[in-house]
Protein backbone atom coordinates (compact mmCIF):
# COMPACT_ATOMS: atom_id res chain seq x y z
CA UNK A 1 0.00 0.00 0.00
CA UNK A 2 1.37 3.37 0.95
CA UNK A 3 5.00 3.86 1.69
CA UNK A 4 5.50 4.05 5.41
CA UNK A 5 7.94 6.90 5.93
CA UNK A 6 6.29 9.92 4.27
CA UNK A 7 2.90 8.85 5.56
CA UNK A 8 4.16 8.83 9.10
CA UNK A 9 5.76 12.25 8.69
CA UNK A 10 2.64 13.77 7.19
CA UNK A 11 0.57 12.26 9.99
CA UNK A 12 2.81 13.88 12.58
CA UNK A 13 2.65 17.20 10.79
CA UNK A 14 -1.13 16.90 10.61
CA UNK A 15 -1.45 16.15 14.33
CA UNK A 16 0.89 19.05 15.11
CA UNK A 17 -1.10 21.45 12.94
CA UNK A 18 -4.41 20.47 14.51
CA UNK A 19 -2.99 20.76 18.03
CA UNK A 20 -1.42 24.15 17.30
CA UNK A 21 -4.58 25.42 15.61
CA UNK A 22 -6.77 24.30 18.51
CA UNK A 23 -4.44 25.76 21.15
CA UNK A 24 -4.08 29.00 19.21
CA UNK A 25 -7.80 29.48 18.82
CA UNK A 26 -8.38 28.64 22.47
CA UNK A 27 -5.66 30.92 23.83
CA UNK A 28 -5.30 33.74 21.31
CA UNK A 29 -8.65 35.45 21.91
CA UNK A 30 -7.83 35.46 25.63
CA UNK A 31 -4.40 37.06 25.38
CA UNK A 32 -4.85 39.13 22.20
CA UNK A 33 -4.23 42.84 22.60
CA UNK A 34 -7.25 43.76 20.50
CA UNK A 35 -10.72 42.50 21.14
CA UNK A 36 -11.36 40.56 17.93
CA UNK A 37 -15.06 41.34 17.84
CA UNK A 38 -14.76 44.99 18.73
CA UNK A 39 -15.31 47.48 15.95
CA UNK A 40 -13.13 50.55 16.23
CA UNK A 41 -12.12 53.04 13.57
CA UNK A 42 -14.09 51.54 10.69
CA UNK A 43 -13.19 54.10 8.07
CA UNK A 44 -9.47 54.09 8.73
CA UNK A 45 -9.00 50.39 9.37
CA UNK A 46 -11.41 48.70 6.96
CA UNK A 47 -10.20 46.25 4.30
CA UNK A 48 -6.52 46.78 4.98
CA UNK A 49 -4.26 44.48 3.00
CA UNK A 50 -2.16 41.87 4.79
CA UNK A 51 1.04 43.15 6.43
CA UNK A 52 -0.28 46.65 6.89
CA UNK A 53 -0.72 49.10 9.78
CA UNK A 54 -3.96 50.84 10.66
CA UNK A 55 -4.07 54.57 11.55
CA UNK A 56 -3.93 53.71 15.23
CA UNK A 57 -0.64 51.89 14.64
CA UNK A 58 -1.93 48.30 14.98
CA UNK A 59 -0.26 45.72 12.74
CA UNK A 60 -2.46 43.33 10.78
CA UNK A 61 -0.65 40.22 9.54
CA UNK A 62 -3.60 38.98 7.46
CA UNK A 63 -5.26 42.36 6.95
CA UNK A 64 -8.69 43.45 8.14
CA UNK A 65 -12.29 42.86 7.10
CA UNK A 66 -14.76 45.53 6.07
CA UNK A 67 -15.48 46.55 9.63
CA UNK A 68 -11.78 46.97 10.34
CA UNK A 69 -11.50 43.83 12.45
CA UNK A 70 -8.16 41.98 12.40
CA UNK A 71 -8.54 38.85 10.28
CA UNK A 72 -6.01 36.74 12.14
CA UNK A 73 -7.70 37.38 15.46
CA UNK A 74 -11.12 36.74 13.98
CA UNK A 75 -10.04 33.57 12.19
CA UNK A 76 -8.69 32.21 15.47
CA UNK A 77 -11.86 33.21 17.27
CA UNK A 78 -13.92 31.54 14.56
CA UNK A 79 -11.66 28.50 14.88
CA UNK A 80 -13.04 27.96 18.37
CA UNK A 81 -16.53 27.69 16.99
CA UNK A 82 -15.66 25.73 13.85
CA UNK A 83 -13.36 23.24 15.58
CA UNK A 84 -15.71 22.79 18.52
CA UNK A 85 -18.73 22.30 16.26
CA UNK A 86 -16.84 19.88 14.02
CA UNK A 87 -15.42 17.77 16.82
CA UNK A 88 -18.58 17.82 18.93
CA UNK A 89 -20.75 17.00 15.93
CA UNK A 90 -18.55 14.08 14.88
CA UNK A 91 -18.23 12.70 18.43
CA UNK A 92 -21.97 12.90 19.07
CA UNK A 93 -22.66 11.25 15.73
CA UNK A 94 -20.14 8.53 16.55
CA UNK A 95 -21.67 7.92 19.98
CA UNK A 96 -25.20 7.81 18.61
CA UNK A 97 -24.17 5.48 15.81
CA UNK A 98 -22.35 3.19 18.23
CA UNK A 99 -25.39 2.91 20.50
CA UNK A 100 -27.80 2.30 17.63
CA UNK A 101 -25.48 -0.23 16.01
CA UNK A 102 -24.80 -2.02 19.28
CA UNK A 103 -28.48 -2.31 20.17
CA UNK A 104 -29.41 -3.45 16.67
CA UNK A 105 -26.62 -6.01 16.46
CA UNK A 106 -27.13 -7.30 19.98
CA UNK A 107 -30.90 -7.53 20.15
CA UNK A 108 -31.43 -8.66 16.55
CA UNK A 109 -35.07 -9.36 15.61
CA UNK A 110 -37.59 -6.54 15.39
CA UNK A 111 -35.51 -3.71 16.92
CA UNK A 112 -32.70 -4.61 14.55
CA UNK A 113 -34.93 -4.51 11.52
CA UNK A 114 -36.57 -1.22 12.54
CA UNK A 115 -33.31 0.52 13.34
CA UNK A 116 -31.62 -0.66 10.16
CA UNK A 117 -34.62 0.37 8.05
CA UNK A 118 -34.32 3.86 9.53
CA UNK A 119 -30.57 3.85 8.95
CA UNK A 120 -30.91 2.83 5.32
CA UNK A 121 -33.67 5.36 4.70
CA UNK A 122 -31.51 8.17 6.05
CA UNK A 123 -28.46 6.90 4.19
CA UNK A 124 -30.32 7.19 0.91
CA UNK A 125 -30.56 10.97 1.27
CA UNK A 126 -27.32 12.88 0.64
CA UNK A 127 -26.09 14.21 3.96
CA UNK A 128 -26.02 17.84 2.91
CA UNK A 129 -29.63 17.64 1.73
CA UNK A 130 -30.62 16.05 5.04
CA UNK A 131 -28.74 18.81 6.87
CA UNK A 132 -30.48 21.49 4.83
CA UNK A 133 -33.83 19.85 5.54
CA UNK A 134 -33.10 19.86 9.27
CA UNK A 135 -31.89 23.46 9.48
CA UNK A 136 -34.87 24.47 7.37
CA UNK A 137 -37.09 23.13 10.10
CA UNK A 138 -35.31 24.46 13.18
CA UNK A 139 -33.97 27.91 13.91
CA UNK A 140 -30.35 28.27 12.77
CA UNK A 141 -28.00 28.48 15.74
CA UNK A 142 -24.81 26.95 17.07
CA UNK A 143 -26.69 24.30 19.04
CA UNK A 144 -28.88 23.40 16.09
CA UNK A 145 -25.83 22.88 13.88
CA UNK A 146 -24.20 20.48 16.37
CA UNK A 147 -27.40 18.52 16.92
CA UNK A 148 -28.12 18.36 13.22
CA UNK A 149 -24.57 17.25 12.41
CA UNK A 150 -24.96 14.45 14.94
CA UNK A 151 -28.42 13.55 13.69
CA UNK A 152 -27.24 13.23 10.10
CA UNK A 153 -23.85 11.61 10.67
CA UNK A 154 -24.51 8.53 12.77
CA UNK A 155 -25.76 6.08 10.12
CA UNK A 156 -22.42 4.93 8.77
CA UNK A 157 -21.08 4.30 12.27
CA UNK A 158 -24.25 2.42 13.19
CA UNK A 159 -23.92 0.01 10.28
CA UNK A 160 -20.23 -0.61 10.99
CA UNK A 161 -20.83 -1.19 14.69
CA UNK A 162 -23.78 -3.47 14.04
CA UNK A 163 -21.70 -5.63 11.71
CA UNK A 164 -18.90 -5.88 14.28
CA UNK A 165 -21.30 -6.67 17.13
CA UNK A 166 -23.03 -9.37 15.11
CA UNK A 167 -19.64 -10.88 14.33
CA UNK A 168 -18.44 -10.60 17.94
CA UNK A 169 -21.48 -12.03 19.69
CA UNK A 170 -20.72 -15.52 18.42
CA UNK A 171 -17.14 -15.48 19.71
CA UNK A 172 -16.06 -17.80 22.55
CA UNK A 173 -15.23 -14.95 24.92
CA UNK A 174 -18.85 -13.86 24.82
CA UNK A 175 -19.94 -17.38 25.75
CA UNK A 176 -17.32 -17.30 28.49
CA UNK A 177 -18.67 -14.04 29.89
CA UNK A 178 -22.17 -15.48 29.86
CA UNK A 179 -21.01 -18.68 31.51
CA UNK A 180 -19.44 -16.58 34.27
CA UNK A 181 -22.89 -15.12 34.92
CA UNK A 182 -22.53 -11.68 33.31
CA UNK A 183 -25.84 -10.12 32.42
CA UNK A 184 -26.63 -9.28 28.83
CA UNK A 185 -26.06 -5.56 29.30
CA UNK A 186 -22.68 -6.08 30.97
CA UNK A 187 -21.63 -8.57 28.31
CA UNK A 188 -22.49 -6.08 25.59
CA UNK A 189 -20.85 -2.99 27.10
CA UNK A 190 -17.81 -4.56 28.73
CA UNK A 191 -16.98 -7.46 26.43
CA UNK A 192 -18.53 -7.11 22.98
CA UNK A 193 -18.40 -3.38 22.40
CA UNK A 194 -14.73 -2.74 23.20
CA UNK A 195 -13.86 -5.35 20.60
CA UNK A 196 -16.24 -3.91 18.06
CA UNK A 197 -15.25 -0.27 18.36
CA UNK A 198 -12.41 -0.08 15.80
CA UNK A 199 -14.32 0.75 12.61
CA UNK A 200 -16.60 3.13 14.50
CA UNK A 201 -13.54 4.98 15.74
CA UNK A 202 -12.17 5.35 12.23
CA UNK A 203 -15.49 6.56 10.86
CA UNK A 204 -15.78 9.07 13.70
CA UNK A 205 -12.25 10.39 13.10
CA UNK A 206 -13.04 10.72 9.41
CA UNK A 207 -16.25 12.51 10.37
CA UNK A 208 -14.48 15.44 12.02
CA UNK A 209 -13.23 16.82 8.72
CA UNK A 210 -16.56 16.54 6.97
CA UNK A 211 -18.37 18.01 9.98
CA UNK A 212 -16.10 21.08 9.90
CA UNK A 213 -16.68 21.41 6.18
CA UNK A 214 -20.45 21.01 6.49
CA UNK A 215 -20.59 23.61 9.25
CA UNK A 216 -18.68 25.99 7.00
CA UNK A 217 -21.12 25.27 4.17
CA UNK A 218 -24.22 25.85 6.28
CA UNK A 219 -22.80 29.04 7.73
CA UNK A 220 -21.85 30.19 4.24
CA UNK A 221 -25.45 29.78 3.13
CA UNK A 222 -26.55 31.72 6.21
CA UNK A 223 -28.14 28.64 7.78
CA UNK A 224 -25.48 27.84 10.37
CA UNK A 225 -23.63 29.98 12.88
CA UNK A 226 -25.13 33.46 12.74
CA UNK A 227 -23.11 36.69 12.72
CA UNK A 228 -21.86 38.47 14.78
CA UNK A 229 -20.56 35.14 16.12
CA UNK A 230 -17.65 34.23 13.86
CA UNK A 231 -17.26 30.89 12.10
CA UNK A 232 -15.06 30.14 9.12
CA UNK A 233 -18.12 29.63 6.93
CA UNK A 234 -19.78 32.96 7.67
CA UNK A 235 -16.41 34.73 7.42
CA UNK A 236 -16.05 33.40 3.86
CA UNK A 237 -19.58 34.55 3.15
CA UNK A 238 -18.70 38.00 4.50
CA UNK A 239 -15.79 38.19 2.07
CA UNK A 240 -18.01 37.28 -0.86
CA UNK A 241 -18.91 40.85 -1.79
CA UNK A 242 -15.34 42.12 -1.64
CA UNK A 243 -13.68 39.11 -3.27
CA UNK A 244 -12.21 41.36 -5.98
CA UNK A 245 -11.08 44.35 -3.96
CA UNK A 246 -10.07 42.48 -0.82
CA UNK A 247 -9.65 38.76 -1.61
CA UNK A 248 -7.86 38.10 1.68
CA UNK A 249 -11.13 38.48 3.63
CA UNK A 250 -12.41 35.15 2.31
CA UNK A 251 -9.02 33.64 1.50
CA UNK A 252 -7.80 33.44 5.10
CA UNK A 253 -10.78 31.61 6.68
CA UNK A 254 -11.01 29.40 3.58
CA UNK A 255 -7.39 28.35 3.96
CA UNK A 256 -8.11 27.58 7.60
CA UNK A 257 -10.92 25.22 6.55
CA UNK A 258 -8.75 23.54 3.92
CA UNK A 259 -5.76 23.04 6.22
CA UNK A 260 -7.74 21.71 9.15
CA UNK A 261 -9.96 19.45 7.03
CA UNK A 262 -6.92 18.13 5.19
CA UNK A 263 -5.17 17.34 8.47
CA UNK A 264 -8.31 15.64 9.80
CA UNK A 265 -8.39 13.47 6.66
CA UNK A 266 -4.72 12.55 7.00
CA UNK A 267 -5.19 11.65 10.67
CA UNK A 268 -8.29 9.63 9.83
CA UNK A 269 -6.37 7.73 7.14
CA UNK A 270 -3.57 7.03 9.61
CA UNK A 271 -5.96 5.75 12.27
CA UNK A 272 -7.57 3.48 9.69
CA UNK A 273 -4.26 2.10 8.46
CA UNK A 274 -3.10 1.53 12.02
CA UNK A 275 -6.27 -0.30 13.03
CA UNK A 276 -6.82 -2.20 9.82
CA UNK A 277 -3.32 -3.44 9.19
CA UNK A 278 -3.57 -5.42 6.02
CA UNK A 279 -7.11 -6.50 5.52
CA UNK A 280 -8.32 -8.74 2.73
CA UNK A 281 -9.52 -6.90 -0.35
CA UNK A 282 -13.16 -7.77 0.20
CA UNK A 283 -13.20 -6.30 3.70
CA UNK A 284 -11.60 -3.11 2.46
CA UNK A 285 -14.11 -2.71 -0.27
CA UNK A 286 -17.07 -3.01 2.05
CA UNK A 287 -15.45 -0.47 4.32
CA UNK A 288 -15.14 1.99 1.50
CA UNK A 289 -18.77 1.41 0.66
CA UNK A 290 -19.99 2.09 4.17
CA UNK A 291 -17.84 5.05 5.14
CA UNK A 292 -17.33 6.92 1.92
CA UNK A 293 -20.27 9.21 2.59
CA UNK A 294 -18.14 10.89 5.20
CA UNK A 295 -15.09 12.27 3.44
CA UNK A 296 -16.77 12.58 0.07
CA UNK A 297 -19.37 15.03 1.30
CA UNK A 298 -18.34 18.60 0.87
Amino acid at each position, binding site marked *: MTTAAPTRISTRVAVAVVVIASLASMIAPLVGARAPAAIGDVVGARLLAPFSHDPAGGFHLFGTDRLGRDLLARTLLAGRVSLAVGIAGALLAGALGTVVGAVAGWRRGVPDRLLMALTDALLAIPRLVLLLLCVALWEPSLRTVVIVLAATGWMGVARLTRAEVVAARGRPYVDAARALGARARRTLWRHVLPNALGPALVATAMGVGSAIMLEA*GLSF*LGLGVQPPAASWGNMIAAGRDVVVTAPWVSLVPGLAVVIVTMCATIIGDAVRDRLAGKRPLAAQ*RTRIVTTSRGP*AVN
Partner: protein
Amino acid sequence: MVTVVFVLARSAPGDPVLMLVSPTASASEIASTRTRLGLDAPIAVQYARWTRGVLHGDFGTSIATGRSVRALLADALPVSLFLGGVSLLLSFVIGVAIGSVQARRAGTRSDLGLTMATTAIAAAPAFWLALGLIAVFTYGAARLGFPAPLRLPAFGLHAPSGAPSGIGWLADLLRHSVLPVGVLTAIGAAGIARYARSALLDVVGTDAIRAARGRGLTGARLAGHVLRIALPGLMVLFALALPGTIAGSVFVESVFAWPGMGRAMTTAILARDIPVVLGATVLYGAAVIAANLLADLALPLADPRLRRDES
Protein backbone atom coordinates in the same frame (compact mmCIF):
# COMPACT_ATOMS: atom_id res chain seq x y z
CA MET B 1 -37.42 7.29 3.08
CA VAL B 2 -40.58 9.18 2.20
CA THR B 3 -41.89 8.45 5.69
CA VAL B 4 -38.73 9.69 7.39
CA VAL B 5 -38.79 12.92 5.41
CA PHE B 6 -42.40 13.54 6.31
CA VAL B 7 -41.96 12.84 10.02
CA LEU B 8 -38.93 15.14 10.16
CA ALA B 9 -40.80 17.90 8.42
CA ARG B 10 -43.90 17.84 10.56
CA SER B 11 -41.97 17.59 13.80
CA ALA B 12 -40.54 21.02 13.17
CA PRO B 13 -41.41 24.13 15.09
CA GLY B 14 -42.26 27.24 13.13
CA ASP B 15 -45.61 27.59 11.44
CA PRO B 16 -45.55 28.07 7.66
CA VAL B 17 -48.99 29.62 7.80
CA LEU B 18 -47.76 32.42 10.04
CA MET B 19 -44.96 33.11 7.56
CA LEU B 20 -47.44 33.35 4.74
CA VAL B 21 -50.21 35.60 6.04
CA SER B 22 -49.63 39.25 6.74
CA PRO B 23 -48.61 40.13 10.29
CA THR B 24 -51.89 41.91 10.86
CA ALA B 25 -54.05 38.96 9.81
CA SER B 26 -56.90 38.07 12.11
CA ALA B 27 -57.31 34.65 13.70
CA SER B 28 -60.05 33.72 11.21
CA GLU B 29 -57.85 34.64 8.24
CA ILE B 30 -55.09 32.45 9.65
CA ALA B 31 -57.54 29.62 10.14
CA SER B 32 -58.91 29.85 6.61
CA THR B 33 -55.40 29.85 5.14
CA ARG B 34 -54.61 26.81 7.21
CA THR B 35 -57.70 25.04 5.91
CA ARG B 36 -56.89 25.95 2.33
CA LEU B 37 -53.40 24.44 2.68
CA GLY B 38 -54.78 21.33 4.32
CA LEU B 39 -52.63 21.89 7.39
CA ASP B 40 -55.59 21.63 9.78
CA ALA B 41 -56.12 17.92 9.14
CA PRO B 42 -54.84 15.34 11.63
CA ILE B 43 -51.21 14.42 11.09
CA ALA B 44 -52.06 10.92 9.88
CA VAL B 45 -54.38 12.31 7.21
CA GLN B 46 -51.72 14.81 6.09
CA TYR B 47 -49.21 11.98 5.89
CA ALA B 48 -51.53 9.79 3.85
CA ARG B 49 -52.35 12.65 1.47
CA TRP B 50 -48.73 13.60 0.99
CA THR B 51 -47.47 10.04 0.50
CA ARG B 52 -50.22 9.30 -1.98
CA GLY B 53 -49.34 12.47 -3.84
CA VAL B 54 -45.65 11.62 -3.98
CA LEU B 55 -46.41 8.16 -5.31
CA HIS B 56 -48.50 9.80 -8.04
CA GLY B 57 -45.75 12.30 -8.78
CA ASP B 58 -47.60 15.14 -7.04
CA PHE B 59 -45.53 16.96 -4.43
CA GLY B 60 -48.14 19.53 -3.48
CA THR B 61 -48.09 23.28 -3.92
CA SER B 62 -45.31 25.66 -3.04
CA ILE B 63 -46.50 27.74 -0.10
CA ALA B 64 -44.41 30.78 -1.00
CA THR B 65 -44.95 30.98 -4.75
CA GLY B 66 -48.26 29.18 -5.25
CA ARG B 67 -46.82 27.11 -8.10
CA SER B 68 -47.00 23.36 -8.06
CA VAL B 69 -43.84 21.89 -6.55
CA ARG B 70 -43.65 19.48 -9.42
CA ALA B 71 -43.49 22.23 -12.04
CA LEU B 72 -41.00 24.16 -9.94
CA LEU B 73 -38.68 21.19 -9.60
CA ALA B 74 -39.18 20.17 -13.22
CA ASP B 75 -37.77 23.57 -14.23
CA ALA B 76 -34.81 23.17 -11.91
CA LEU B 77 -34.00 19.52 -12.52
CA PRO B 78 -32.45 19.74 -16.03
CA VAL B 79 -30.04 22.43 -14.85
CA SER B 80 -28.83 20.27 -11.99
CA LEU B 81 -28.74 17.12 -14.11
CA PHE B 82 -26.56 18.94 -16.63
CA LEU B 83 -24.24 20.38 -14.00
CA GLY B 84 -24.00 17.20 -11.94
CA GLY B 85 -23.89 14.78 -14.87
CA VAL B 86 -21.11 16.54 -16.77
CA SER B 87 -19.09 17.12 -13.59
CA LEU B 88 -19.50 13.55 -12.40
CA LEU B 89 -18.42 12.13 -15.73
CA LEU B 90 -15.42 14.44 -16.04
CA SER B 91 -14.33 13.93 -12.44
CA PHE B 92 -14.56 10.17 -12.85
CA VAL B 93 -12.39 10.15 -15.97
CA ILE B 94 -9.86 12.62 -14.57
CA GLY B 95 -9.89 11.07 -11.10
CA VAL B 96 -9.24 7.55 -12.34
CA ALA B 97 -6.51 8.87 -14.63
CA ILE B 98 -4.76 10.62 -11.74
CA GLY B 99 -5.23 7.54 -9.55
CA SER B 100 -3.63 5.33 -12.22
CA VAL B 101 -0.64 7.64 -12.59
CA GLN B 102 -0.18 7.55 -8.83
CA ALA B 103 -0.61 3.79 -8.61
CA ARG B 104 2.01 3.31 -11.31
CA ARG B 105 4.49 5.52 -9.47
CA ALA B 106 3.48 4.46 -5.96
CA GLY B 107 5.94 5.62 -3.33
CA THR B 108 7.72 8.16 -5.50
CA ARG B 109 7.78 11.89 -4.95
CA SER B 110 5.25 12.59 -7.67
CA ASP B 111 2.86 10.12 -6.00
CA LEU B 112 3.26 11.88 -2.67
CA GLY B 113 2.84 15.28 -4.30
CA LEU B 114 -0.35 14.20 -6.07
CA THR B 115 -1.68 12.67 -2.84
CA MET B 116 -1.12 15.98 -1.05
CA ALA B 117 -2.74 17.88 -3.91
CA THR B 118 -5.81 15.65 -4.09
CA THR B 119 -6.21 15.65 -0.30
CA ALA B 120 -6.02 19.45 -0.25
CA ILE B 121 -8.51 19.94 -3.09
CA ALA B 122 -10.87 17.37 -1.61
CA ALA B 123 -10.70 19.38 1.62
CA ALA B 124 -11.58 22.67 -0.06
CA PRO B 125 -15.17 23.89 0.31
CA ALA B 126 -16.80 24.12 -3.13
CA PHE B 127 -18.15 27.60 -2.50
CA TRP B 128 -14.70 28.86 -1.52
CA LEU B 129 -13.04 27.45 -4.65
CA ALA B 130 -15.86 28.96 -6.68
CA LEU B 131 -15.29 32.40 -5.16
CA GLY B 132 -11.58 32.14 -5.88
CA LEU B 133 -12.15 31.19 -9.51
CA ILE B 134 -14.63 34.03 -9.95
CA ALA B 135 -12.13 36.46 -8.50
CA VAL B 136 -9.45 35.31 -10.93
CA PHE B 137 -11.32 34.49 -14.13
CA THR B 138 -14.24 36.89 -14.02
CA TYR B 139 -13.13 40.05 -12.27
CA GLY B 140 -9.39 39.58 -12.33
CA ALA B 141 -9.20 38.46 -15.96
CA ALA B 142 -9.38 41.92 -17.46
CA ARG B 143 -6.96 43.42 -14.98
CA LEU B 144 -4.48 40.57 -15.33
CA GLY B 145 -4.66 40.89 -19.10
CA PHE B 146 -6.00 37.40 -19.82
CA PRO B 147 -6.95 36.77 -23.47
CA ALA B 148 -10.67 37.05 -24.18
CA PRO B 149 -11.44 33.30 -24.13
CA LEU B 150 -10.22 33.14 -20.52
CA ARG B 151 -12.45 35.97 -19.31
CA LEU B 152 -15.29 33.80 -18.08
CA PRO B 153 -18.77 34.80 -16.97
CA ALA B 154 -19.66 33.87 -13.42
CA PHE B 155 -23.40 34.25 -13.09
CA GLY B 156 -26.37 32.44 -14.53
CA LEU B 157 -26.70 30.13 -17.49
CA HIS B 158 -26.75 32.70 -20.26
CA ALA B 159 -25.74 36.23 -21.02
CA PRO B 160 -28.84 38.48 -20.85
CA SER B 161 -28.20 39.66 -24.42
CA GLY B 162 -27.24 36.25 -25.80
CA ALA B 163 -28.60 34.52 -28.86
CA PRO B 164 -31.94 32.77 -28.19
CA SER B 165 -30.98 29.52 -29.89
CA GLY B 166 -28.52 27.79 -32.18
CA ILE B 167 -24.74 27.71 -32.06
CA GLY B 168 -24.45 31.04 -30.26
CA TRP B 169 -26.78 29.82 -27.55
CA LEU B 170 -24.76 26.65 -27.05
CA ALA B 171 -21.43 28.48 -27.02
CA ASP B 172 -22.79 30.93 -24.47
CA LEU B 173 -24.03 28.07 -22.28
CA LEU B 174 -20.64 26.37 -22.49
CA ARG B 175 -18.82 29.55 -21.54
CA HIS B 176 -21.09 29.95 -18.53
CA SER B 177 -20.50 26.30 -17.60
CA VAL B 178 -16.71 26.33 -17.46
CA LEU B 179 -16.34 27.69 -13.94
CA PRO B 180 -19.20 25.83 -12.18
CA VAL B 181 -18.37 22.52 -13.84
CA GLY B 182 -14.67 23.15 -13.21
CA VAL B 183 -15.18 23.60 -9.48
CA LEU B 184 -17.30 20.47 -9.11
CA THR B 185 -14.97 18.45 -11.33
CA ALA B 186 -11.84 19.48 -9.43
CA ILE B 187 -13.31 18.47 -6.08
CA GLY B 188 -14.92 15.30 -7.41
CA ALA B 189 -11.80 14.20 -9.28
CA ALA B 190 -9.65 14.75 -6.19
CA GLY B 191 -11.91 12.55 -4.09
CA ILE B 192 -12.15 9.85 -6.73
CA ALA B 193 -8.39 9.86 -7.33
CA ARG B 194 -7.82 9.13 -3.65
CA TYR B 195 -9.99 6.01 -3.81
CA ALA B 196 -8.89 4.97 -7.28
CA ARG B 197 -5.24 5.02 -6.20
CA SER B 198 -5.77 2.57 -3.34
CA ALA B 199 -8.21 0.43 -5.33
CA LEU B 200 -5.70 0.09 -8.19
CA LEU B 201 -2.83 -0.59 -5.80
CA ASP B 202 -4.84 -3.40 -4.22
CA VAL B 203 -5.23 -4.94 -7.67
CA VAL B 204 -1.57 -4.49 -8.53
CA GLY B 205 -0.71 -6.65 -5.54
CA THR B 206 -2.89 -9.59 -6.64
CA ASP B 207 -1.64 -12.87 -8.11
CA ALA B 208 -3.43 -12.17 -11.39
CA ILE B 209 -1.23 -9.16 -12.06
CA ARG B 210 1.89 -10.97 -10.90
CA ALA B 211 1.01 -13.68 -13.42
CA ALA B 212 0.43 -11.11 -16.15
CA ARG B 213 3.82 -9.57 -15.39
CA GLY B 214 5.31 -13.04 -15.49
CA ARG B 215 3.94 -13.50 -18.99
CA GLY B 216 5.92 -10.43 -20.00
CA LEU B 217 3.09 -7.88 -20.17
CA THR B 218 4.13 -4.27 -19.68
CA GLY B 219 2.91 -0.76 -20.23
CA ALA B 220 -0.56 -0.17 -21.60
CA ARG B 221 -1.46 -3.86 -21.84
CA LEU B 222 -0.60 -4.43 -18.20
CA ALA B 223 -2.52 -1.29 -17.24
CA GLY B 224 -5.46 -2.70 -19.18
CA HIS B 225 -5.39 -5.85 -17.09
CA VAL B 226 -5.24 -3.85 -13.87
CA LEU B 227 -8.14 -1.61 -14.89
CA ARG B 228 -10.21 -4.61 -15.96
CA ILE B 229 -9.86 -6.21 -12.54
CA ALA B 230 -10.43 -2.93 -10.73
CA LEU B 231 -13.49 -2.08 -12.84
CA PRO B 232 -16.21 -3.41 -10.48
CA GLY B 233 -14.78 -1.43 -7.57
CA LEU B 234 -14.58 1.71 -9.69
CA MET B 235 -18.19 1.27 -10.80
CA VAL B 236 -19.32 1.18 -7.20
CA LEU B 237 -17.29 4.33 -6.66
CA PHE B 238 -19.21 6.04 -9.45
CA ALA B 239 -22.48 5.57 -7.58
CA LEU B 240 -20.87 6.58 -4.31
CA ALA B 241 -19.56 9.83 -5.76
CA LEU B 242 -23.09 11.04 -6.44
CA PRO B 243 -23.95 12.38 -2.93
CA GLY B 244 -20.75 14.43 -2.94
CA THR B 245 -21.57 15.84 -6.35
CA ILE B 246 -25.06 16.74 -5.19
CA ALA B 247 -23.69 18.49 -2.11
CA GLY B 248 -21.16 20.37 -4.18
CA SER B 249 -23.78 21.38 -6.72
CA VAL B 250 -25.95 22.94 -4.01
CA PHE B 251 -23.12 25.37 -3.18
CA VAL B 252 -22.02 25.87 -6.76
CA GLU B 253 -25.55 26.71 -7.87
CA SER B 254 -25.82 29.11 -4.98
CA VAL B 255 -22.57 30.95 -5.82
CA PHE B 256 -23.03 31.00 -9.59
CA ALA B 257 -26.76 31.73 -9.43
CA TRP B 258 -27.73 28.70 -11.51
CA PRO B 259 -31.48 28.07 -11.30
CA GLY B 260 -31.11 24.40 -10.35
CA MET B 261 -32.42 22.09 -7.63
CA GLY B 262 -29.85 23.17 -5.05
CA ARG B 263 -30.78 26.81 -5.46
CA ALA B 264 -34.47 25.98 -5.41
CA MET B 265 -33.92 24.16 -2.16
CA THR B 266 -31.84 26.85 -0.43
CA THR B 267 -34.29 29.55 -1.53
CA ALA B 268 -37.18 27.45 -0.24
CA ILE B 269 -35.43 26.91 3.08
CA LEU B 270 -34.98 30.62 3.66
CA ALA B 271 -38.68 31.12 2.85
CA ARG B 272 -39.72 28.13 4.99
CA ASP B 273 -41.44 26.75 1.90
CA ILE B 274 -41.61 23.24 3.29
CA PRO B 275 -43.36 21.44 0.39
CA VAL B 276 -40.56 22.49 -1.98
CA VAL B 277 -37.88 21.42 0.51
CA LEU B 278 -39.60 18.05 0.96
CA GLY B 279 -40.00 17.55 -2.77
CA ALA B 280 -36.35 18.34 -3.46
CA THR B 281 -35.24 16.01 -0.67
CA VAL B 282 -37.32 13.14 -2.03
CA LEU B 283 -35.96 13.74 -5.52
CA TYR B 284 -32.35 13.80 -4.30
CA GLY B 285 -32.94 10.61 -2.34
CA ALA B 286 -34.50 8.98 -5.37
CA ALA B 287 -31.46 9.95 -7.46
CA VAL B 288 -29.08 8.32 -4.98
CA ILE B 289 -31.20 5.17 -4.74
CA ALA B 290 -31.41 4.97 -8.52
CA ALA B 291 -27.64 5.35 -8.85
CA ASN B 292 -27.04 2.59 -6.30
CA LEU B 293 -29.54 0.35 -8.04
CA LEU B 294 -27.88 0.99 -11.40
CA ALA B 295 -24.49 0.15 -9.92
CA ASP B 296 -25.88 -3.06 -8.44
CA LEU B 297 -27.46 -4.03 -11.74
CA ALA B 298 -24.36 -3.16 -13.76
CA LEU B 299 -21.92 -4.93 -11.46
CA PRO B 300 -22.53 -8.44 -12.86
CA LEU B 301 -21.70 -7.08 -16.33
CA ALA B 302 -18.25 -6.12 -15.10
CA ASP B 303 -17.67 -8.93 -12.64
CA PRO B 304 -18.52 -12.44 -13.90
CA ARG B 305 -18.24 -13.81 -10.37
CA LEU B 306 -21.42 -11.95 -9.45
CA ARG B 307 -23.47 -13.50 -12.26
CA ARG B 308 -26.04 -16.07 -11.27
CA ASP B 309 -25.50 -19.55 -12.54
CA GLU B 310 -27.26 -20.20 -15.79
CA SER B 311 -28.81 -23.39 -14.47
